[in-house]
């Protein structure tokens, strides 16, 4: 059968499938908003989608929100957001995200966008989904948004009591985290993706299950809804 989707589409579909049935989702990049809207379209009105500008309706328009960016973050800090999406330029195997510099702060080699938003989301949302490309999955020297830090209980010891990253979704596969060591492990491969391809492309060693499940491709309804969501956001 001919493939009528690409892996970026499946990435968004996967994120939408993994989102909770109800509650509130915080999204700020186009990819995130598409995933959240897709979930909303597939389930008929849930979860609620929150962006830094305010809540979105089914068609991706801002609902009149009598508040500023600060009020949106108060929602996050109050614990009213169940899942927050995060993106960064480097993501390591413990779910730590770097969105600011490589090298040191005093003498940076490469400067990214800043990563201030991702920092808030992992600190304040009850749990986090990380969306990244496979090239971004590599060791980071600077943690702008803390995941499980050095693994084990180090996140808890640092004083972060929320759930932290739950999934890493890239265009080859989906990772979750080992409950004890908090190392990323492959949850499922996308169709037509080989194990060696993942191992070659990402910059750290992932854990592999005995038998690697394959994620089923997007259904007709999901692709239709995705097209709709894309047309709303542009």
């Amino acid at each position, binding site marked *: 059968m001919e493939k009528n989707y690409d892996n970026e589409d499946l990435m968004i579909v996967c994120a939408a499938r993994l989102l909770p049935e109800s509650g509130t989702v915080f999204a700020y990049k186009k990819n995130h908003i598409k995933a959240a809207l897709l979930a909303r379209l597939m389930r008929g009105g849930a979860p609620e989608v929150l962006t830094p500008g305010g809540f979105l309706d089914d068609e991706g328009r801002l609902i009149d929100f009598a508040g500023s960016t600060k009020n949106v*973050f108060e929602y996050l800090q109050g614990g009213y957001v169940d899942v927050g999406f995060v993106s960064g330029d480097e993501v390591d195997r413990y779910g730590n995200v770097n969105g600011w510099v490589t090298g040191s702060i005093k003498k940076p080699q490469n400067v990214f966008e800043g*990563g201030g938003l991702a*920092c808030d989301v992992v600190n304040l949302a009850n749990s986090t989904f990380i969306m990244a490309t496979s090239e971004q999955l590599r060791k980071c020297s600077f*943690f*702008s948004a803390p995941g499980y830090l050095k693994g084990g209980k180090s996140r808890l010891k640092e004083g972060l009591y929320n759930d932290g990253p739950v999934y890493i979704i890239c265009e080859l596969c989906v990772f979750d985290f080992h409950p004890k060591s908090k190392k990323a492990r492959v949850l499922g491969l996308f169709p037509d993706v080989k194990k060696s391809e993942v191992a070659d492309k990402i910059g750290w060693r992932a854990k592999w299950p005995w038998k690697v499940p394959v994620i089923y491709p997007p259904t007709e309804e999901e692709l239709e809804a995705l097209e709709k969501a894309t047309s709303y956001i542009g």
Partner: protein
Amino acid sequence: MAEVIALKEAVKMIPDGSMVFFGGSGLNRNPMAFCRELIRQNKKNLHLIGVFGGLAADMLTAAGAVSRVELAEFSLEDEMDALYLRQQVADCNIQAEIYSAYAMCLRLYGGASGVPFMPLRSMIGTDLRKPTFRGEGGKLMTVACPFTGEPVNLVPSINPDVGVVHVLKADIEGNVIIEGPLESDLDGLLASEIKLVTAEEVVEKLDFRLKGFYSWRVILPNFVIEAKFGAWPTAAPSAYLRDVGNLGLWHMEPYDKYFAKFIAPKESTIIKSLDGKKL
């Protein structure tokens, strides 16, 4: 009661080295007319404050008008990067202090409400705690809560010298209408010493009974400036969308060429070229 003044006069008031708050974010409602005038008057060493640094911050950086920034993000939009800002920070020409977005909002809110610091739950376990120019202990403190004893992060409030925000409509009394997301404009403006508002339209008296507006605020600025297309090429909700063609040029063309075409001409020439164009 606000004073209605010309754009040139307003920019003349701002000395080199001022701490300036810019409203809007990314490609939405940046005070671009004001920013272009700052470049034309060759201001230097500005200290930019904002939450999501937008095109204004990128353009001022490209012009060499900035020496310090305090922001949470540089990003303009998913496909567009604030390339000049990123490059200048990497080359150590600009010192950047990055806070988390909520921390930056609270710092402005603290400044607006006149308290010296604000507590927050964010910024735990992140390397963004390391200071650059604010020095050790000047960026962020973790203290025990005086009531419960649990650790809490404190960030210092901030009071910029000048705050500039672009709005849809303003009246001579200083009431304004903002449409679309408010961003952090209200807090930023209230925290600033000199409050400037550039408006698409300045009217005698605003009618707040008008329906269909997303939001209106009474912020009582010190000075109101009429600047048609004052947010171009970024968007001003309900007036015009972002100018994708021009933003493409900003990214593709070298700065000097863009400067000669779109920044150096008088503001009236720019407005004339845009009048009637579908944005």
